């Protein structure tokens, strides 16, 4: 039944490992975009402007209620109709970064809301500027309660990178698929992809928990 071929496995392994680099790059870049943009989206909802809050909330709702793969297609194939011709990598990073920014902004929002009102009042009573208040007082306290959620989405974005294969980003899934169509053997490449994902996800999740504990200690909040 199972016809696992070890010689074939060793042959394709280097190609898959090389593609793992692209997967990690895609996850890392996409996550970096999401972390920064998500913070911007969260802060944008806290300005005095009601209109801005409403627009941002609707945009986040929209992104969260439509599939990522659709968003990837949309940026890549519909973009050119608006004169926006993007490489698969650029389109993919925009789509996945934006998608996860919407989710991360909700994580930050929870973290920001968890900072007691008294902290804002103490900052005002010391006459700290708004930006100083955010960056020195509020965000450092919003971070620890956000870390677990941020970690989940780091693993999430990593597992979603195969969706980028639909527009031809040469990450793991795309490469495994290419090997399959060249050799008509799918068992080994897809199994290896699964093992690689598992081998990277598990330690990441554990690492995040350690990092979280470290941050709390570092901020003296234990």
């Amino acid at each position, binding site marked *: 039944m199972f016809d696992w071929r070890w010689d074939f496995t060793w042959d394709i392994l280097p190609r898959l490992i090389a593609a793992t680099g692209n997967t990690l790059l895609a996850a890392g870049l996409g996550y970096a975009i999401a972390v920064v943009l998500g913070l911007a989206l969260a802060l944008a909802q806290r300005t005095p402007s009601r209109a801005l809050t409403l627009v941002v909330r609707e945009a986040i709702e929209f992104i969260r209620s439509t599939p990522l793969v659709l968003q990837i297609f949309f940026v890549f194939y519909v973009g050119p109709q608006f004169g926006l011709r993007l490489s698969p990598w650029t389109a993919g990073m925009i789509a996945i970064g934006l998608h996860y920014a919407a989710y991360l902004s909700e994580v930050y929002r929870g973290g920001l809301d968890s900072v007691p009102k008294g902290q804002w*009042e*103490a900052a005002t*009573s*010391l*006459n*700290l*500027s708004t930006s*100083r208040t955010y960056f*020195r007082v509020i965000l450092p306290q919003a971070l620890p309660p956000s870390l677990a959620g941020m970690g989940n989405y780091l693993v999430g974005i990593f597992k979603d990178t195969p969706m980028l294969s639909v527009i031809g980003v040469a990450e793991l899934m795309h490469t495994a698929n290419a090997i399959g169509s060249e050799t008509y053997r799918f068992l080994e490449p897809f199994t290896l992809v699964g093992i690689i994902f598992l081998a990277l996800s598990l330690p990441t999740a554990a690492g995040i928990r350690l990092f979280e504990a470290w941050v709390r200690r570092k901020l*003296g909040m234990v």
Partner: protein
Amino acid sequence: MDAQDLSGFPLRLEGDAVPMVSFRKVTKSYGSLVVLDSLDLDVAEGEMVSVIGPSGSGKTTVLRMLMTLETINGGVIYVDGEPLTHMPRGDRLVPADSRHLRRIRAKIGMCFQQFNLFPHMTALENCMEGPVHVLGLSKKEARERSEELLAMVGMTEKRDQHPSRLSGGQQQRVAIARAMAMRPKVMLFDEVTSALDPEVIGEVTNVIRKLVAEHNLTMLMVTHQMGFAKDISDRVCFFYGGRIEEQGTPDALFGHPKRERTQQFLSAVREAI
């Protein structure tokens, strides 16, 4: 803020005895609930005024408005002769913008019932934050100033601890040092001993006594400790239903209260002890 006629309010207070703080016909409401009703209250420079009264009578609100943590719905608050809630434009007063608020607010410091220290900073860092980032002092100057104040409140040994490692009394003393590091002219205390265990209340009230003795601060203090208020105040204001029901020297107010509500409140408080 409601549109209101401010023509009766001076652009600034002038003359011989300009009060350090002046509430003029200040009104505060939440929806239809009027919390403060046309409050008039002057506090002279260097004066220590205690505010007492039943729960919900508006004591905290008075301090919070002065600290600009609440907006007001009517009237004008003046600090050191200048309007706080408003600013002059031409020959009339308009609601203050954030720049004006920041400039006048620099004269005021506040300590809270729940301390509100920044938990991710050590005691010393809590004290240095404002002096460095608001007043623009060098790290060295800010550190010297903060260490001096931490010594004054008896917290030198704990200066490198985070608040989570400090007792309530210790946290409150750091909070007083932190507020003092901004060199305010007016200090506000809102029930700073109410969250403390009885045995550490003294360490905080002693610090406040020291401030009264050694600094020419103007102070407004909300407290439930009648004995402390009696000892330390120049004047005591009894609030009832968003108004000053009665005020006077501690001896007069505690010894010979004139109004029936004051008498009732004081005897109820005495019974509770």
